[in-house]
């Protein structure tokens, strides 16, 4: 499973960030206040690591401490370096730092990109290793429970939209300074939007029909629960539409290793679901979602069945990192454009028809620039208490100090403790 997990992260985290890195606009980046506070509280002369620093938005805070950033995405790391920060390219699962070298570590919106529980634990343990005893770590991850939206599943793919348009209300208020690119954790914009425009409140201006059309993300089965190719139930309405892409996928699967094929199947299935999505949810309920380890290979050729559960809705309720842009009702240009691989030509066309469907529904006409590449980001959103439990049950060297919900993120602050093994 680790191979499949790595591959999933390569396709739907690393390569996506590499592609969207140029769109990240630093002027729109503001630090989450509590993270900023955490940094400002560090003693002068402290050495702090930001693991998964992105383009370095936290690295300028507090001149009295020495900060190191690292990330796996080269364009983002280069961007951080050009701002004068000390950064390295590395993998969160294998940090190139000595044991106990840091007084504090940040992990902001990072481990929710890890596709299995085991990898998430490993990432936390790695960071704990680099913390000195008494040092503190702050971890932020996306919450499953959000004020106005409910992720029905924890493992999801979220499309990235480079050109989310402004809502009419915001435009009127001359808020044209909002640049059109997306970013993660755009907290400040979110607050600005909230304060200036009480009328642009989630759900208020949106009719239920529109609302349903505008939610947009894909659910996947967690890689932790094994993809059992033989025992899934598929809702009747969608099984026929899924036939073709599944065949394509199974063809391609036979050509590749099972893990790659799995990923392809997932991707092809997202696009295939879009055709039916606007009218109904493609929702596969599988009561047998428990973990039972089962090798992909051994579970056979699952030609008739679907390995993932997919829902395709659109929502105007903001995602934690698309906050300011998703608040408007008129558009959601996060059209799913699947990677233009040869096995997916057909799904790509279906995507475009989805796009035109959305347009004709009266959405604003900014659909001319759509990402041609797949910009599906994988997330495992966390339930309340999940992160805390993960640490308490699996990371002895960390002692949880605080847990709280911050703007749709679960946050944990923990301290490194000495563990004596008898």
């Amino acid at each position: 499973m680790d191979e499949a997990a790595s591959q999933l992260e390569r396709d739907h985290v690393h390569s996506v960030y590499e592609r969207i890195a140029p769109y990240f606009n630093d002027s729109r980046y503001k630090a989450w206040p509590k993270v900023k506070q955490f940094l400002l509280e560090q003693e002068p002369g402290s050495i702090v690591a930001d693991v998964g620093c992105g383009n370095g938005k936290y690295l300028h805070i507090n001149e009295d401490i020495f900060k190191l950033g690292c990330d796996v995405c080269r364009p983002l790391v280069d961007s951080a370096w050009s701002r004068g920060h000390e950064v390295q390219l590395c993998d969160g699962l294998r940090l190139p730092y000595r044991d106990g070298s840091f007084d504090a570590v940040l992990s902001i919106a990072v481990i929710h990109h890890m596709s299995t529980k085991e990898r998430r634990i490993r990432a936390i343990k790695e960071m704990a290793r680099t913390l000195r005893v008494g040092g503190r770590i702050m971890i932020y991850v996306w919450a499953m429970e959000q004020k106005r939206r409910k992720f029905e599943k924890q493992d999801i793919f979220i499309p990235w939209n480079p050109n989310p348009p402004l809502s009419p209300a915001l435009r009127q208020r001359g808020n044209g300074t909002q640049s059109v690119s997306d970013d993660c954790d755009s907290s400040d914009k979110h607050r600005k939007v909230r304060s200036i425009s009480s009328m642009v409140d989630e759900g208020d201006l949106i009719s239920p029909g529109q609302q349903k059309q505008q939610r947009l993300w894909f659910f996947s089965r967690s890689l932790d629960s094994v993809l059992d190719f033989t025992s899934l139930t598929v809702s009747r309405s969608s099984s026929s539409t899924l036939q073709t892409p599944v065949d394509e996928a199974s063809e391609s699967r036979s050509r590749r290793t099972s893990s790659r094929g799995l990923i392809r199947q997932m991707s092809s299935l997202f696009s295939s679901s879009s055709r039916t999505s606007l009218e109904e949810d493609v929702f596969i309920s599988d009561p047998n979602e428990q973990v039972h380890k089962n090798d992909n290979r051994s579970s056979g050729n699952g030609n008739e069945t679907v390995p993932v559960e997919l829902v395709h809705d659109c929502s105007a309720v903001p995602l934690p990192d698309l906050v300011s842009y998703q608040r408007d009702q008129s558009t959601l240009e996060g059209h799913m454009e699947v990677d233009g691989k040869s096995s997916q030509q057909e799904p790509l066309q279906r995507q475009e028809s989805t796009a035109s469907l959305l347009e004709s529904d009266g959405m604003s006409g900014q659909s001319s620039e759509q990402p041609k590449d797949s910009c599906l980001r994988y997330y495992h959103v966390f339930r309340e208490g999940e992160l805390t439990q993960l640490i308490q049950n699996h990371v002895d060297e960390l002692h949880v100090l605080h847990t709280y919900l911050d703007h749709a993120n679960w946050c944990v602050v923990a301290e490194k403790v000495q563990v004596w093994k008898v």
Partner: protein
Amino acid sequence: MKLLTHNMLTSHVQGVIKGYPLIIKATEVKVNELEFSAPFVSRMIPKLEWSLISALNCTLIPDYEKDEEFLRKVHRILLEVEVVEGCLQCPESGREFPISKGVPNMLLIEDE
């Protein structure tokens, strides 16, 4: 890569027991000017792995907090000198991690 950063780094190749100090092979070095802060440097000093810095011809002296000349020297070495191009070599395995445009690439391939 500043030399202060180098102090934190280690080779994490599988099987390596002690992957530091990484041997610095620099092909391009830059020296920046950075505002000196005695409290910052003196607080930093106890956190460092001094064996790495002694290798740079700088030994830790007692009572360093009061010695501004010493602190300035440490400041210059750790914070103002920057390796822009070159590589870091693992002292045990010999594996080289490239530094390009000031950024060390510490990514390992799958089986390392």
